[in-house]
């Protein structure tokens, strides 16, 4: 037990100390927390009326970010899978970083879900026995279940690994490996369920097609590794932890495959919908070209297309792919492209037109943007802390030293 308490203390102390770059970065993130507190308080007291949401478009930016971040969380599996299934050694060494990313992403998901709820104070109604969980009927309950289990799997798996490394004991593989393999399958499940969450609603024809889960997974496995590459390159530059080129290259190859499939699926959807051009295509037309004189989503869509297509083409060229100065920018471009594609460009047109044909607009309010930015900032603070602690342990900077306990 002593060892464990020591682990926590050493972890926290290590994480709290850092160079000017670290403080500057954290300070930058904290800047967003002030508006976030104001925004959350205002929303808690006045209700969601402070957002741009309406009865017409009742799912907005919060849920869009949620859906995207579930993808990022699932994307962590692109690190874990090659490490454990293909025994990719250099990847194996940094698997835990992927798990940390997953933890941070799920925490962001939870923040966004709470912000989306009209009565977050009543969230306990979902806790079985205290409340009523409409399982298995409601897809939302599935989502809650798989996300919380995924969070636990990654927390346990990640911190078990780090702790063992910290005390320098061998891993108990009978305990550890099942967690890892379950987590791999689970990563797929969280995003599949999130896709089912919206595509099981025939009332919203834009979402109601069976391609949704696979599109979700492929975009997730593009956006997730894109973020991971950026993180890894930053880590390589700023810490002593050397992440092998082969790790980065494998991840960018995964992006190519997944993004390629995602683009192909998007194209298939566009052709299917626009060729037949039934009423069910109205949402897509609204998104791509605008409809009934309302065009607010059009720039978003095309920005996303440019980001994804250009990113894909650039990655295809080995010379560019292996140039680690440009690579992070390409990754950010892809990350942004997918964020739009799964966020604004998927969530919003699902509600436009309404099931009885009313076209409208959705303009997030400043407060809503504050809250979203704040959620992201908090997520990145968590991510930074988790990664920093994990790196310290991987490097051996943080290590159990019984002597020091007596000091």
């Amino acid at each position, binding site marked *: 037990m002593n060892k464990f308490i020591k682990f926590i203390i050493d972890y926290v102390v290590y994480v709290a100390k850092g160079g000017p770059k670290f403080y500057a970065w954290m300070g930058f993130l904290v800047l967003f927390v002030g508006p976030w507190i104001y925004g959350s308080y205002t929303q808690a007291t006045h209700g*969601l009326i402070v957002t741009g949401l309406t009865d017409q478009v009742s799912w907005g930016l919060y849920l869009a970010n949620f859906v995207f971040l579930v993808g990022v969380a699932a994307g962590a599996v692109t690190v874990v899978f090659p490490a454990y299934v293909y025994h990719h050694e250099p990847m194996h060494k940094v698997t835990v970083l992927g798990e940390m990313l997953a933890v941070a992403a799920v925490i962001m998901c939870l923040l966004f879900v709470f912000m989306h709820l009209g009565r977050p104070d009543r969230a306990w109604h979902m806790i079985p026995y205290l409340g009523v969980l409409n399982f298995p009927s409601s*897809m939302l309950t599935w989502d809650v279940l798989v996300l919380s289990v995924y969070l636990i799997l990654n927390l346990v798996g990640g911190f078990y690994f780090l702790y063992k490394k910290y005390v320098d004991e061998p891993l108990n593989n009978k305990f550890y490996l099942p967690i890892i393999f379950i987590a791999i399958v689970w990563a797929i499940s969280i995003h599949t369920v999130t896709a089912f969450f919206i595509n099981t609603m025939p009332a*919203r024809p834009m979402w109601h097609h069976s391609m949704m889960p696979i599109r979700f997974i492929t975009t997730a496995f593009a956006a997730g590794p894109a973020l991971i590459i950026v993180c890894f390159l930053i880590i390589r530059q700023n810490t002593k932890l050397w992440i092998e080129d082969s790790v980065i290259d494998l991840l960018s190859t995964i992006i190519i495959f997944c993004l390629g499939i995602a683009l192909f699926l998007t194209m298939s959807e566009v052709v299917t919908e626009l060729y037949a051009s039934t009423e069910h295509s109205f949402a897509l037309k609204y998104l791509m070209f605008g409809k009934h004189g309302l065009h607010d989503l059009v720039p978003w869509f095309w920005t996303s297309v440019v980001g994804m297509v250009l990113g894909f083409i650039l990655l295809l060229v080995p010379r560019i792919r292996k140039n680690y100065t440009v690579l992070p920018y390409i990754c950010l471009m892809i990350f942004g492209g997918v964020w739009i594609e799964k966020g604004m460009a998927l969530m919003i047109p699902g509600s436009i037109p309404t099931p009885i044909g009313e076209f409208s607009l959705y303009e997030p309010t400043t407060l809503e943007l504050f809250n979203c930015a704040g959620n992201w900032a908090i997520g990145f603070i968590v991510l930074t802390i988790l990664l920093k602690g994990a790196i310290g342990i991987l490097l051996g900077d943080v290590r159990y030293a019984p002597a020091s306990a007596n000091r």
Partner: protein
Amino acid sequence: MSKKLIPTKNLSDEQLEGCEGLGLQALGIDAERGGAVSSSRRQFIRNVGGVSAASMMGAAALMTHSDQAQAKSTWAEWFQGNYRLMTKKEKAEAIARLEKRYSEEYGKKVTVDGTDAQEGVLFGYALNIQKCIGCRRCVKACVKENNQSRSKEQEMEWIRVLKMEKGEFSKDKMDDGYPLDYGVQVGGNAYSAAGVVLEGEHYYDPEKVPESDSHYMPIACMQCEKPPCVKVCPIRTTYREPDGPVVIDYNWCIGCRMCIGACPYWARRFNWGEPHLPKEEMNPKTHYLGNRPRMKGVVEKCTFCLQRTRHGRYPACVEVCPVGARKFGNLLDPESEVRRILDRKRVFRLKAEANTYPKFFYFVD
């Protein structure tokens, strides 16, 4: 009764008096039930001694409610269970609590009814789409009856009337088709809607209705027999009552809006902010599952005027329709108006392909 539970004997009256300064009375929790506040203030403060740790938890949330009367019952309400699963006794208590709060808030005697479904009754609705003139009186009657929010910032209407063009085919439009380059032929008249389609105007506002070039189509909750909204609700706060209407326990809803996404008829509305219901306009005869005042952050919709229909009365929209387009009755009674319409008239269900089995039928003469 609650005295037994609370060791207040060793508290002197002065000590109790002191408690008031702490604002504890705002908690207003009866130790036994977390329920109504006792008449004597001192007695009440004694009760506070028995407040469970759990109830202290939400003190922070409470601070946002400065109004005491409201805060008191908000607390007890916050802890209450899902109405559908409550015992008879718990239901009665929940209702008493609400009656007290509403009466204080609206400055008049407000009743909250808990009448259950009547055996052998399945409510059904039929609307003569040929007769409707689009006057929107049903919309406003519904608002008056069901205590919806009414302000420019938050206006709530459960019924939406669509105006649809009868359609006009003209020679001038013959050449408006797609350019031939696309290799697709489209007649120019394809560019304007014709007939009853769901591409109407929602905000039409002419001097007089009906306009000679339009049809009108009112849409509200269809009280589906296979309601997708019920399926997706994570906490079963919305459910189908035995006599047919799909209802919501407003005190249990978490405001996730899954149901809004799932409803194919756009029948559900959300309380984005605290509803605005003027005291003098408030309808004091309410039902727990029907028209009682709602709070911010929850979903609401048509219930076939449960508070009326469970007592034999037509829904408000039926009574106000100037052309008698709206018909209501018991689907299990072959002599009822709706059943006669099903027998006699050409009847259709909106979006039948959704397979939700609405109990709201449209018909033509």
